[in-house]
């Protein structure tokens, strides 16, 4: 039948598909929820812990990185401050101890200069300048006696502040040096003189060179305008502008993260040298210091990623396993519920059929008796009018009554056999009885039904009602599958000593190969909206329960055959 094939093919896409689709969506949601929740609960603490560790390690490493730079800046800043304070104190001592007149004596000034040079070092020359700015006396490598400094800034500075430390300059010699000058009031009102000494920056450069810095690091002095006061390894020579600029003023040493002119990050430590224009600067590459931190950070990130992947894998596998188990348990529960529901439905139908049959039986008997009486009256009385016609009417009524009685008896028999019970059964008559339910359909659709039962087939022990249901289900499917004018063969064989095999074979379109493994699964239907998907599943369950086996063999276009093997002796 042409319409059967589409029905079979739509089954997987139609009813079954929708039902499976709805179920899959529910389990997919459950799976997502399970994965998301478990992942959140397990990964969140891991991520938080990693972030805290990350932050703490970073702080520790940063502290370790900053501390040496800070220490270096602070120590060197103090050293240079002490250096300047010491030399200024020496000049102050000289002007307090030596009278102005003695200092104006070049011989006396020369002795003082030699004492200071030997005691403190770093002094290049020494001069006495009067309040008019004229150099009254001078000891040193140049001819500076008589030179006037009145218009120079440093002279005003020392006049106002009492002491002065100059920026580094190259001067007449072309060598970098700076000046320390102190003022001494002369006793007369407004009269004073200045003792001025030149200091070679080589002393400071040597100190900076002794800091034992890495080649990539740097240390130098700059003034408040950002001009290099000592040479730098990377940023130029003396009196060149430093690209780092001037760091903000602070009374203590400070550490900053800055970028140089190439945009490279640098750790900058600095200290303002008190009562001078100098700022000590040390620069280090953070990469060297942070190399260990970078390695550790990489290890932490790898550990986090590996742990995350491992946890997610376990969660995915675990969730999949659990959701599959839930799905299987649900399917088993649904199957059990449907079986119970199906059995209850069948029992209700049986009870209803019995009731209907019983109630119809009595009126049928009365109709039958009256028709028989009518026939008797006509037959036994002498020549009533229309005798033959009345007799044929009575026969027609009686024939219909007999047919109706057969149906009610069959219904009663069916209902009575709903209760499970093992009894001795001749399969031939039982199959004939089941086939009689389909007799009308076979007749209308011109379907040929062949029942072949060997004469010596043994009686089997089984449950009559359950067997009827098994064969009724399989035959109903066969009738649905074959086209009008098709053929259904019911063959009974004894292939093995302890079993008999009932083969129900149709010449319908067959079952698609991909449907064959699912044909006995619950809710798998090839009948579209018309099928519950339970018939063959229940049939399978019943045959198993009766100790038998059921198989299906089919090739598309060549029909299908169901083989039901039943034990001759009941196991129960």
């Amino acid at each position, binding site marked *: 039948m042409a319409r059967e094939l589409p029905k079979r093919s739509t089954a997987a896409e139609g009813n079954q598909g929708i039902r499976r689709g709805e179920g899959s969506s529910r389990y997919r949601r459950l799976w997502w929820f399970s994965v998301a929740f478990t992942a959140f609960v397990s990964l969140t603490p891991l991520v938080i812990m990693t972030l805290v560790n990350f932050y703490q390690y970073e702080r520790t490493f940063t502290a370790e990185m900053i501390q040496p730079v800070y220490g270096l800046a602070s120590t060197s800043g103090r050293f240079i401050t002490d250096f300047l304070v010491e030399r200024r104190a020496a000049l102050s001592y000289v002007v307090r101890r030596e009278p102005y007149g003695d200092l104006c004596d070049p011989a006396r000034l020369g002795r003082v200069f030699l004492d200071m040079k030997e005691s403190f070092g770093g002094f290049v020359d020494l001069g006495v300048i009067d309040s008019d700015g004229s150099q009254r006396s001078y000891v040193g490598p140049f001819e500076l006696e008589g030179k006037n400094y009145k218009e120079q800034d440093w002279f005003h500075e020392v006049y106002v502040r009492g002491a002065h430390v100059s920026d580094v300059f190259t001067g007449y010699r072309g060598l970098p040096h700076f000046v320390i000058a102190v003022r001494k009031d002369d006793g007369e009102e407004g009269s004073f003189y200045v003792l001025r000494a030149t200091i070679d920056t080589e002393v400071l450069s040597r100190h900076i060179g002794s800091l034992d810095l890495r080649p990539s690091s740097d240390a130098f002095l700059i003034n408040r305008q950002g001009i290099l006061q000592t040479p730098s390894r990377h940023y130029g020579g003396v009196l060149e502008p430093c690209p780092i600029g001037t760091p903000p003023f602070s009374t203590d040493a400070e550490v900053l993260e800055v970028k140089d002119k190439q945009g490279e990050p640098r750790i900058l430590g600095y200290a303002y040298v008190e009562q001078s224009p100098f700022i000590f600067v040390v620069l280090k590459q953070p990469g060297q210091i942070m190399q260990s931190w970078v390695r550790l950070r990489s290890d932490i990130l790898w550990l986090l990623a590996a742990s995350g992947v491992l946890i997610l894998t376990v969660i995915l596998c675990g969730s999949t396993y659990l959701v599959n188990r839930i799905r299987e348990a649900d399917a088993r529960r649904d199957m059990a519920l449907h079986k119970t529901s199906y059995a209850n439905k069948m029992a209700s139908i049986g009870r209803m059929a019995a009731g209907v*049959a019983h109630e119809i*039986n*009595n009126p049928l*008997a009365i109709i039958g*008796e009256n028709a028989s009486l009518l026939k008797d*009256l006509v037959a036994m009385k002498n020549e009533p009018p229309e005798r033959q016609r009345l007799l044929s009417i009575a026969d027609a009524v009686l024939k219909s009554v007999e047919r109706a009685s057969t149906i009610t008896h069959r219904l009663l*028999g069916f209902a009575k056999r709903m209760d499970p019970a093992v009894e001795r059964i001749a399969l031939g008559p039982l199959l004939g009885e089941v086939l009689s339910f389909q007799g009308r359909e076979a007749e209308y659709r011109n379907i040929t039904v062949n029942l072949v039962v060997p004469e010596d087939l043994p009686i089997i022990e089984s449950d009559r009602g359950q067997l009827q249901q098994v064969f009724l289900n399989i035959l109903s499917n066969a009738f649905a599958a074959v086209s009008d004018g098709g053929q259904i063969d019911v063959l009974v064989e004894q292939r093995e000593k302890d079993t008999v095999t009932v083969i129900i074979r149709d010449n319908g379109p067959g079952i698609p190969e991909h449907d064959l493994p699912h044909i006995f699964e619950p809710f798998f239907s090839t009948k579209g909206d018309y099928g519950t998907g339970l018939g063959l599943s229940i049939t399978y369950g019943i045959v198993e329960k009766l100790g038998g086996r059921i198989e299906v063999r089919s090739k598309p276009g060549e029909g299908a055959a169901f083989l039901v093997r039943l034990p001759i002796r009941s196991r129960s």
Partner: protein
Amino acid sequence: MERIKILIVDDEIDLISTLAERLALRGFQVETATTGAGALERLAENGFSVLLVDVKMPGIGGLELTAEIKRVRPGLPVILFTGHSSFDDAERGMQEGACDYLVKPIDIEQLILKIRNAVGAKEGFQS
């Protein structure tokens, strides 16, 4: 020859009146009762040759009636009517003393045969 006198006991009045007429047409003398109690009353007055009793009746049922008849008239044959689903009742009735049973709808020829067998057996027993 004396006509065989039959008492039919069934609560379905339409059924037994028709059956009674059919048997009468075939030469039997037939009376009817629609309850077990009515049947026992008639039994005291008339000399019936055989009783046809329906198994399922309100009040005194067919099996109970059979047992009572066997108690008061042990030699009187009783044939039971039964529906298709009441074979067990029919078998129990045979144990109570019924001589035969018949499944509805009734085949008149089969019924007459069973009546004659029952009466013949009774007469044989009596002689």
